[in-house]
């Protein structure tokens, strides 16, 4: 059985170790995050991966999202630099530990099974604060395969 907590804690640990983020949450924030850059790790869709599944086994893929929040404060030019640099830093982190400490079979960096690592930048308003955001997509191929058995 795959432990989501282990996966998430591994990603959080990597993010905190960079020193780039004021705080790292295991969920999307409900209130306006404080600090120059904050990050949240949250779970996305789970599906089966055909090309990684055997005749009698099925591999699962979990999409992990890491969203970075940078307050839209002057100088705005610097906000752009910050959000892009930190997005690249997060992507480099998963490239540097693509098995997430052994908790996953691999992070599908190049999209071998469809979804690849990437980032989508945008804007969001939380409470009274406006934020520049970057949501990094981390497709995780889970280490364990489920057996497929036909009922006699």
């Amino acid at each position, binding site marked *: 059985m795959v432990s989501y907590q282990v996966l998430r804690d591994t990603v959080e640990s990597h993010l905190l170790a960079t020193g780039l983020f004021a705080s790292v949450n295991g969920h999307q924030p409900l209130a306006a995050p404080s600090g120059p850059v904050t990050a949240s790790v949250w779970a996305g869709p789970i599906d089966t991966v055909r090309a990684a599944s055997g*005749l009698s*086994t099925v591999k699962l893929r979990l999409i992990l999202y890491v969203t970075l929040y940078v307050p839209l404060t002057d100088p705005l030019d610097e906000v752009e630099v910050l959000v892009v640099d930190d997005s690249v830093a997060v992507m480099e982190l998963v490239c540097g530990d693509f098995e997430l400490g052994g908790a996953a079979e691999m992070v599908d960096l190049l999209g071998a099974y469809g979804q690849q690592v990437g980032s989508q930048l945008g804007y969001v308003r939380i409470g009274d604060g406006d934020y520049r955001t970057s949501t990094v997509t981390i497709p995780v191929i889970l280490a364990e395969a489920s057996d497929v058995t036909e009922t*006699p």
Partner: protein
Amino acid sequence: MAKQSGLGDALYAAGYDLSGDSNSVEISSTMDPIDVTGLPSSAMERTDGHRDSKIGWKAFWNPTGAHPVLSALPTAQTLATYCRSTVLGAPAFSHCCKQLGYDPSRGSDGTLTMAVETVGDQYAGEWGVQLTPGVRVDTAATDGATVDDIGAAGGSLGAQAYLHVMACTAVDCTITVQDSPDDSTWADLIVFTPVATGSAPTWERAVTGPTEDVDRYLRVITSTTGGMTSVSFAVMVVRNLTATAF
């Protein structure tokens, strides 16, 4: 019976269960017809030529699974079996074969798969029925469950059986295919070579005589004289419906 998908299938090669390390399978059975069209004929006439078979599959890179088995590129004859599900009595295809390749394909997206091809050797592939539900594990001498082979009355044209032994911890263990006309009185049909600790993984193809009676009910039993701890194996049997020569 309703139509089925290919989910939950199995693939065995030379006594190894490679089901989880194999992504797709392709099977073909061919026969080279010999042209015997006579001068007065207005259409082609052909007679049977050499039969052949092929099982090809795509293997995943598994350094502790499929890789040590397939990368050895054995030159000796081996055995490959495809099982349509792992249900007792379900169809399976086996052929004694030569392994032709183990060809890696590393894509720019990071995928890494191996193309494996086996072609028939000495005997062409045959469809039969599974007498074990996938891989059966016996921890003591066991009489296996009965397979009512297509409800058919027994034939007198013999049978072939294919055995994969995946693991064996035993002083000795004899795996035997038995048949019965009434699911009650059993007789040995095919007795495989006994296996013991150290002999697995291994495989065997065994046959009856060409005119042997094969009764309707079939099963596989294990027996031992010196004791057995655990034997993992899979058996399929092919009942001949026409006179067969090899």
